[in-house]
C-alpha cells in the first residue's frame, strides 16, 4: 500500500508540472516594454503612434529632418552658402555616400514603414475603434505616406515602393525590394494623397488642440503639386479648387508675420513641421528632443548673444547675389533678408541690431525666416534649442503653383492674377499678363525665388520645370550637370540591395 502511495505521489509530482507548463512558460517582460499584443488597442495608442511618425520629421532622433530639408536643397541651388561663404561643393553633395542624401532617404522610409504598420494595425482594430476613427486614422497615415513618397519621387526618382509591414520570417537572403519607375511612385503618391484628401480633417475640424496635424488642405496642396509632376493639369486644377473651396487659407498681409515663433501655424500655412523651444543647452553635434538649430545656423556668425542663440553660427547664409536680385522695394527683401549695414529686430531680441560691416560674413546676406533672438522669456546667454517651425507648404507657394497650372491650361489671366496676388502682398506692382511661355516662366520662377528662398521646395521647382540649368548659368555661371536633376540613390542602400537601380549619371 505504502509503495503504491509513493508511486502515485511520484507520478503526480512529475506530471503536475507538465500540465501547467504552458502557463509556466508564458513569461512577460515586466519592464514596461510594450509588445504587439498591447499596442494599438485604443484610439490613443494609434494617435500616439502617429505622433511617433510625425516626430521623425523633426529629425531629432537621427539628426536628419526638416532642418536639412530646408538647408540642403537651397545650398544646392547656390543661393545659400556655407559658413565661410563658399558655395557647396556639388560633386560631394551629389554623391551616393553623402550623409544628407542617405539620411533623408532613411527618414522617409522610416515614416513610410510606420504608416504601413498603422494601416495594417488599423485593419485589425475594428473592435477597438469606431468606423469614423478608423477612417481618420487611415487618412492621416496615408497623408504621411503620400507625403514621403512625394518627397522621395521628386528627389530620387525611381525608388522602391514599400506598402506592407515587413514580414521578418522571410528567408534572410530574399531581396528587400527593387526600385520601380518614377511614374509608379507618383501614382502611389496620388493614390495616397487622394484618399487622405477625402477623409482628413480640415484645420477647423482638428481644432486648436491638434493644430499642426495634417489637414485636408495639406493633402490637396501636395496632390496638386504631384499632378504637376504628372502634367495632369486638369486634376491639378481640381485639387487647387478643392483647397480654395475649404476657405481656410489666405495670404497674410505682412510677410514678416508668416515666420513667427510666437504665432505659428497661421492662416497662410498649409503644412508645417512643428518644433518647440527646448531648454537644453545647444551644442555642436548635439541632438535635441523637440527643438532645432535653424536659428543658430542662419544667424550671422558670432553676432552676439543678444541677437542670436549661442552668438550665431552662420552655418547657412544667403549669397549677396541672391539678396541683390530683389527689387529694393520688395517687402520680402526688406523684411526677410538682411545684409551687413542693415538693421533688424526679430522676435526675442530686446533691441535692434545693425549688422556690422566688419563681421566675418560681410559678403553675405541673412535670411530672417528662421533667425530669432534669444527666446522670449529666456535670459540672454541661455543657449536653448530653437522652436521655429519649418513651413513645408504655404498658401503663397500654393498660389504660385496654381498660377503655373492655370497657365498650362491656357488660363493666362487667372494665372497672372495668382502670381500678382503674391507680388502685391510684397508691395510690388503686378506683372503684365503675357501669354508667352518664357516670359511667364521667368516671372513665375523669379517670384518663386523671392518668395520661397530658404524654404524646402524651391529647388524642386527648378528641376521639375527643367530650368535649373539656365538658373545655374545665368546666376552663378555654373555648368549644370543633368544628373543633378535627381539625387543619387544612396550607395549603402545599393550595397544592401543590389537590385536597386541608380539614377542616370551616377
Amino acid at each position: 500500500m505504502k509503495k503504491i502511495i509513493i508511486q502515485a505521489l511520484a507520478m503526480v509530482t512529475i506530471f503536475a508540472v507538465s500540465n501547467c507548463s504552458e502557463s509556466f512558460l508564458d513569461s512577460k517582460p515586466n519592464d514596461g516594454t510594450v509588445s504587439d499584443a498591447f499596442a494599438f488597442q485604443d484610439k490613443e495608442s494609434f494617435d500616439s503612434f502617429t505622433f511617433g511618425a510625425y516626430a521623425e520629421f523633426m529629425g531629432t532622433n537621427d539628426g536628419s529632418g526638416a532642418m536639412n530639408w530646408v538647408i540642403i536643397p537651397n545650398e544646392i541651388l547656390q543661393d545659400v552658402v556655407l559658413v565661410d561663404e563658399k558655395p557647396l561643393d556639388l560633386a560631394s553633395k551629389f554623391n551616393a555616400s553623402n550623409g544628407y542624401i542617405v539620411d533623408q532617404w532613411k527618414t522617409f522610409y522610416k515614416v513610410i514603414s510606420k504608416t504601413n504598420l498603422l494601416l495594417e494595425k488599423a485593419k485589425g482594430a475594428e473592435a477597438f475603434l469606431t468606423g469614423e476613427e478608423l477612417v481618420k486614422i487611415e487618412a492621416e497615415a496615408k497623408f504621411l505616406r503620400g507625403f514621403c513618397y512625394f518627397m522621395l519621387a521628386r528627389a530620387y526618382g525611381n525608388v522602391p515602393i514599400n506598402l506592407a509591414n515587413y514580414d521578418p520570417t522571410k528567408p534572410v537572403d530574399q531581396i528587400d525590394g527593387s526600385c520601380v519607375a518614377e511614374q509608379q511612385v507618383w501614382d502611389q503618391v496620388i493614390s495616397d494623397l487622394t484618399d487622405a484628401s477625402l477623409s482628413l480633417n480640415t484645420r477647423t475640424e482638428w481644432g486648436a488642440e491638434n493644430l499642426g496635424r495634417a489637414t485636408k488642405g495639406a493633402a490637396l496642396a501636395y496632390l496638386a503639386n504631384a499632378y504637376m509632376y504628372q502634367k495632369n493639369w486638369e486634376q491639378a486644377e481640381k485639387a487647387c479648387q478643392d483647397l480654395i473651396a475649404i476657405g481656410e487659407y489666405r495670404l497674410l498681409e505682412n510677410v514678416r508675420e508668416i515666420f513667427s515663433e510666437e504665432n505659428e501655424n497661421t492662416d497662410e500655412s498649409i503644412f508645417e513641421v512643428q518644433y518647440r523651444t527646448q531648454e537644453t543647452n545647444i551644442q555642436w553635434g548635439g541632438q535635441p528632443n523637440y527643438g532645432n538649430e535653424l536659428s543658430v545656423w542662419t544667424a550671422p556668425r558670432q553676432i552676439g548673444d543678444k541677437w542670436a542663440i549661442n552668438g550665431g553660427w552662420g552655418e547657412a547664409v544667403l549669397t549677396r547675389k541672391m539678396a541683390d536680385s530683389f527689387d529694393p522695394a520688395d517687402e520680402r527683401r526688406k523684411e526677410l533678408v538682411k545684409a551687413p549695414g542693415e538693421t533688424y529686430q526679430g522676435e526675442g531680441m530686446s533691441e535692434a541690431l545693425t549688422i556690422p560691416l566688419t563681421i566675418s560674413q560681410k559678403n553675405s546676406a541673412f535670411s530672417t525666416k528662421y533667425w530669432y533672438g534669444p527666446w522670449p522669456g529666456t535670459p540672454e546667454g541661455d543657449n536653448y534649442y530653437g522652436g521655429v517651425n519649418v513651413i513645408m507648404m504655404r498658401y503663397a507657394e500654393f498660389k504660385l503653383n496654381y498660377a503655373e497650372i492655370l497657365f498650362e491650361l491656357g488660363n493666362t489671366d487667372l494665372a497672372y492674377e495668382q502670381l500678382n496676388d503674391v507680388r502685391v502682398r510684397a508691395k510690388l506692382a503686378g506683372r503684365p499678363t503675357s501669354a508667352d511661355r518664357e516670359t511667364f516662366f521667368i516671372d513665375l520662377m523669379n517670384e518663386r525665388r523671392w518668395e520661397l528662398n530658404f524654404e524646402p521646395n524651391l529647388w524642386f521647382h527648378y528641376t521639375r520645370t527643367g530650368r535649373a540649368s539656365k538658373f545655374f548659368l545665368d546666376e552663378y555661371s555654373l555648368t549644370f550637370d543633368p544628373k543633378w536633376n535627381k539625387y543619387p540613390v544612396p550607395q549603402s542602400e545599393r550595397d544592401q540591395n543590389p537590385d536597386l537601380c541608380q539614377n542616370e549619371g551616377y
Partner: protein
Amino acid sequence: MKKTRLSCRLYVPHSVSFTRESPLLSMIAVLLLAVSSLQVQAKDSLDQEKISINKESAAVKLVLKEIERQTKLRFFYNTQQVDVKRKVTVSFKDTPVGDVIEEVFKGTSIHFKFAGRQILLFDSALQVNPDKVLTNPMTAETSTTVQTVSGKVMDEQGQPLPGVNVIEKGTTNGTSTDADGKYNLSVSGENAVLIFSFIGYVTEEIPVGTKTVIDIKMGPDITSLSEVVVTGYGSQEKKVVTGAVASISERDISSISVTGFDQAMQGRMAGVQVTQNSGEPGGSVSVRIRGVGSINNTTEPLYVVDGIPLAGNLNGINPNDIERIDVLKDAASAAIYGSRGTNGVVLVTTKRGKAGKLTLSLNSYVGVQNSANKVDLLNGPQFAKLANENLANAGLATNPAWDNPESQPSYDWQDAIFQSSSIQSHNVSVGSGSEKSQTFFSLGYFQQGGLIIGSDFERYTVRLNTDYNIGNRVKVGGTFNVSYYEKQTSPTDNNYNGILTNVAMLQPTMPIYSDVDGQNGVYYGWEGYNFISKNSSVDFYPTGLNNEVHTNLQYNRRYGSNLQLLAAAFAEVEIIKELKFRSTLNVSVGNSFGDQTQRAAPAEISDIGQYRNSTKYTESWDKTDQVNWINSLSYKRTIGKHNLSALVAMDALKNNYRYVNVDAANAPEEQFSIDASDSESRTVSGSKTGGPSTNYSLVSYIGRVTYDYNDKYLLTVNVRRDGSSKFAPGNRYGTFPSASVGWRLSEESFMQSVRVVNDLKMRISYGEVGNQNIQNFAYYNTYSDNRGTYVYVLGTNQDLVSGIYLNSVADPTIHWEKSTQVNFGVDAALMNGMFTLSADYYIKKLSDLLGNVNYSSVLGIPGNTILRNSFSMENKGLEIALGFNKKLGAVDFSANANFSTLSNKVTKLNGVATDYVSQSISVNANSDGNASTRTYVGDRIGNFYGYVTDGIIQNTDEVSNSGMTGLSPGDRRYKDIVVDGVVDDKDRTVLGNGLPKYIFGLNLEAKYKMFDLSVFMNGQAEVEIANMTKFYTGNMRFYNTTGIVNGSTDLLKSWNGEGTSNEVPRNSYNTPNSNRYFSSAYIENGAFLRFRNVQLGYTVPSAISGKLKMTNARIYVAAQNLFTFTNYTGYDPEIGSGNINGSTSQSQLTTGVDYGRYPTSRTFMLGVNLQF
C-alpha cells in the same frame, strides 16, 4: 577530509569486481584479484565462529546480511556472478559460519574463501586465463620461505585499508589486508619486493630487505578509471562513460589559490580554455569549452552546482568546498542539459558528510602578492631629452624645464600604482555522520588585496550540506550556501582611461606627491600643474590625463558587494529495489550592490583636469532569484551480463532579474552614499528607476538510457525536450537528442594476451544541443514611448505629445542556437596504470547562431537590423590527456599533461550586407584608423583587421612612393595590399587572431618520504595579441591632440635620419595620424608558458601529529605565477576578451585585445592543511 572510497571501482583486466554489501557502508567496491576455479577450503579459524540463523524463503542477500550482523565478517561478491536474490531456507543453531555458507550455496557453482575477516564469494565455473592469475594465497606454493613480513596498510588519512592486495613481485604469492588493514605474508627472502594494490589507490612497490614490518600509506590514484563521473542528473563509472568528460578532483582545486573554482580549472583539462579576464581581485574569468560557441551571445558554459544550475555569481562558491568538477565537453554528454549545452556544462559537486568518525579540517594559507612584470618606460632624463626633441623636431619651442635631461628627477609611476598586498584564505570544515545522518559544514574566509591601489576583494562563505537516511528507502537532505563578498575595483579593462595606460603616459619627471611647501604629502596632480605651468606652454602638459594615484586613492571609488544564498532540499525514495524517485527544490537568491563615487575636486583642480566639479554618486542594485524544481525517476537493472539503467526527469526553472540604478549628481562633496535626509542638495538624474528587468522560465523533460553488455559494449542515449519562455509560443520547444557508444577492447578475449594494456576503450558520440542563453523576449516586437525624447509638438499651446514608436522588430521564429557535435575518443591505461591516455577528436558544428541581419532601410526597421538565427561556425580540435604514475626509487612520481588544438571557422554569415561582421576595438577611431576585428566566412572569428606595416619611410623618394599623402621621411609605411598605388582603408587585411590554436597544461608531482613537490604549468601557442597599449606608449604626443606624454623605451630607437630605424617612426610632435594606425606593428605573439604553481609540502610524521590528536598535518610553501616565458611586451599575455568601455557583450569578437589589462600577480604563500 577523508577520501571517499564509495566511488572507487578500478578496472583491472580479467579480474572480477566485487561489491561489498554492507549495512554500514552502502556501496564500497573493492578490487579482488581473480581467483582460480579450484575449490577453496576455508582454513581460517574464523569459519568456526558460531552463529544461529533461522530464515524461511529469504533472499540469499538477507542471509548474508544476517551473518554479517552476527559476526564481524564481511562478504565480497560480484552481483553478476552471485545471485543474491535467490531464495533459500536456512535453519541453524550455533553452527560454524563456514558450514552455514556452504549450505547457502549448496548446489551452485559459488565457492567462498576467507581473506582475513572478509569472505569472498566467486563463481568457480568462470573460465580464467591462468596468465592473469596473480595469486591464490591459499594454494600458492611458496618455495623457499625464509622471511615473514607483516604490517599495516593505511589510506592517506591514516585510516586502515582492508582488502588491499599484497603480492610478492614476480610470484603468485600474496595475501590481502584484513579489516584493520593488517597483513602477514611469508616471502622468499631479502630480495623480495612487495606490491600493494588497491582500487582507486596508487600501486606501491616496496623492497623487503631485512625488514619484517612494513607499514605503508597508500595515496589515492587520481588518474584512476574507477572514478565515478558526474554526468548530470546522475553519475556513471568512468570506465563505462562514452562521452567526452574531463574531471578534476579536490586535490587539483585546493592545490592552487584561486578566488573562484572556474580559475582552478585553468590548464587542468584538455579542451577547456580558462582565461583570466582581469587579474584584479575577484576579477572575471572566461571559460571556453571547445572554442567559441556563439558569435553574438555568451560563450560561457552552464555551471551546475550539486545538480542545480547556478543562478548567481561564481565567486560565491568557495573552492575549498568542492569535491570534484566534471566538464561535459561533447554534445552527447551535454545533451542532458539540452538548450543550455552548446558551450559545455561544468558540473560542480560539493563535499558532503560521510558516516564515520568526525573529521575537522583546517586549511589556511597566507601569502604576499606583487607585480610579476613592469613594462619598459622612459625614465626622467630619457623622457626629458626625448620630449624636447619631439617638440624641436616639429619646429616648436622646447620646454625649458626639460633643458637639462641629466639633472631631471625620475619618478616611477608604475611603482606608485602597483603595490605588494596580502592574500589569505582560511577554511574550517567539519564532516561527520552516522548511518542515519551525515553533515558537512564549512566556514571560509578569503581576502585578496589588489596589485593596483584601490582594489581588493574579501569573501565570507558558509556551507551546510546534510543528508539523512530515513529507514532504508528514504533519503532527504539539503544544501545551503551563503556567501558575501565585497570588492573594490580600479578600472583597467577599458579602452579609454584605463589606469595602466594612463600611468604609462604620465611624465616621469613629475613628482607623484607634491614637493611644494605647504603641500607636503599631498598627491601631486592638478594642484601640481599650477606650479609647473608657470613656465609651461599648453603643448607640454596634456590636460586629459589623470594622476591615477591621486584619483584612485582620493577621488574615485568603485565598490561592489554581493550577497548570495543558494539553498536546495531533496528527497529520494527507493520505490522498489533500484527504482528511485528523487525530487529537488532549489531556491537561489542573489543580491548585488554597487556604488561608484566620483568626488568633486576643488575648483582649481577641476577647472584644469578631468575631475568633476560636483560629486557624482551612482548606486545600483540588482537581484536574481531562481526557483528550480527537479523530479526524477531512475532505475537500474542487471540481467545476466546486461546492465541497464534508465532515467526520466522533469525540470522546471524560473528566473527573475531586476535592476535599479540611481545617479545622484551634485551630491554633497563628501557623500559616499545616498542620504535621503539631504535630498535638497543634490539632484537625482539619469535612470533613477527601472533598468533592465526581465525573467525567463524553462520546462524540461529529460530521458536517459544507458546499457552495457558485460562492461564491454556500451551505449548511452540522452534526450531532452526543453520549453523556454524566451521564444514565441510556437517555437518554445526544442528536442536535443544524443547517442554515444563505447567499446572496451580490453575486455575482448583477443586482447587478453596483450598484457601491457590494462584498459582500452573507444568511444564515438553524436549529439545536438542548443544555446538558450540569449536575450529574453527577443521574439517580441517592442514599442517604446520614451516620454521626453520621442515627442511631437501640437496645438496652439505647443503641447508635447508623446509618440509611441517601434523599438525593435523581432523575428518571431527566433529559436535556439544549435550545435551538433561528433566526438571520437579513446581511453587507455597501460602497464598497470603507469600510463594513462585519453584522446578526443571532435567536430562541433554551430548553426542557427544569432546575428544581426542587415536590412535595407527601405523597410524602415529600427536600426535596420533584425536578430535572426542566420550565422554558422565550426570548431574542430584534438584533445590529449596523458598521465604517468610511477614509483621511481623512493620517489612517487606522477606527471599529467594535457594538450588541445582548436581550429575555428565561420561557415555562414547570411544576411550580412558587407560579407563580414565588424567589431570596433578602436581606442581613437581617427588616430588609429578604425582598429577593428573582422569576421569573414571561411575564416576564424574575430580576426584583427588593419594595415600591414612595411617599415619606416627613409627618404623623400620613398615618401612619394608611399601611396599616402602628407608623409615625411621617418613616418610609417604601409603595404598597398589592393595594389592601386594608393594606401587607404581598402588596404587593411587580417593581421592575426586572439584565439589560441594550442593550449596546454603540465602538472608534475613527486613525493619523497614526507615531502611532496608539485610544479604546474600552463600555456598557449599560435596566438596573437593586439597590443593596443602601443597606441599610447608608442608616441609622445597625447592622443595626437595636446601635450607630451611618456612612452615606451622603444622611443629611444626612433628614426632619426635615413637608415637609423626601420621599426620606430620619427619622434616628432607633428606626425601624421597614420603613424598610429592599427597595424601589424601592434600585433604580438601571445604564446606563453607559465609556471602557475610550484608547491613544496611537508607532512608531519604521524608520530608527532598523532600526539596533537591530528590525523594529518601538512605544511607547504607555494609560489604562483613564478615565471612566465613569453615574448609579449605588455604586462601579461593572458588576455581574455576585450572589454570595450565596460561592456563585454561582443567579447567573442574581441578576444586577445589588450587595452592595458590588470595583470596577474606573483604570489608567495605559506599554508597548512590539518585534519583532526
